[in-house]
């Protein structure tokens, strides 16, 4: 069980690191938001599943599930609000030059 939990946490870390690299590499706020949503959707999910496996059967798992549910409800809302604000403020999405 411990090994499984460590594996999950490592997998979560992998996606968190990829998301961080994405935030640095991608060109503008719109594409960076995509990288950040990677953190929420799989990174945090795998980390929390790993923690839940580590805890075993206990009431802390309910709290972890509550955190997960909140993450999955709030993150799209925040991302949407940020992107809409950026668009309405007049930022132009980066386009690849036609080659």
């Amino acid at each position, binding site marked *: 069980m411990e090994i499984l939990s460590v594996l999950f946490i490592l997998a979560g870390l992998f996606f968190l690191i990829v998301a961080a690299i994405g935030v640095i590499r991608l060109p503008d706020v719109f594409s960076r938001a995509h990288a950040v949503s990677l953190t929420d959707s799989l990174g945090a999910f795998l980390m929390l599943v790993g923690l839940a496996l580590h805890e075993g059967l206990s009431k802390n798992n309910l709290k972890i599930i509550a955190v997960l549910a909140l993450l999955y409800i709030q993150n799209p809302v925040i991302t949407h609000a940020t992107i809409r604000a950026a668009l309405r403020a007049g930022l*132009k999405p980066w386009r690849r030059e036609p080659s």
Partner: protein
Amino acid sequence: MRPVSSEFLVLKATALFVLWVLLSGSFDWIHLVLGGVLSFTVAWINSGHSPFVPKFRLWGNILLYLPWLFLKIVQASLHMSKLILNPALPIDPRLIRVETKLGRRAAVVLLGNSITLTPGTITAEIDHDIVPEGLAIAPDPDALLVHAIDETLARDVTTGTLEAKIAEVFKNEERRW
């Protein structure tokens, strides 16, 4: 404002109380009484201004829809990771219109949220009647404006499989908007 029957008040208070007990994890009298009083108060305060009627079938449908969405999220995440880790950074971001015939507000919100939750696509405007100047996209109240990071992920939302799934979730609900 719709009157809320006391039946739902009790249901809400009970749900909040169960949540309280599960999260606090202590069964002594102080905690139980405090939790009971608080959950009833919160349910009572809330009963006034929200026309809350539980729709168990709809919630059940949404619960059945979530695993499918999660599979999509995993696929899109892997694709997104490949894009980021590729040294050539082969992204091709674009704004796309996603037409929807769902009509119901709640269904469109679920569609928009599902699109945003999937990495690589973000809903920028729900029924975009405002479009910032200088974008080559006309305003359109029946479509979502979605920012997608490349063509593969853009195709995922334009083919309409997501919309069909959500239409299925809501198919048994009588239409109120």
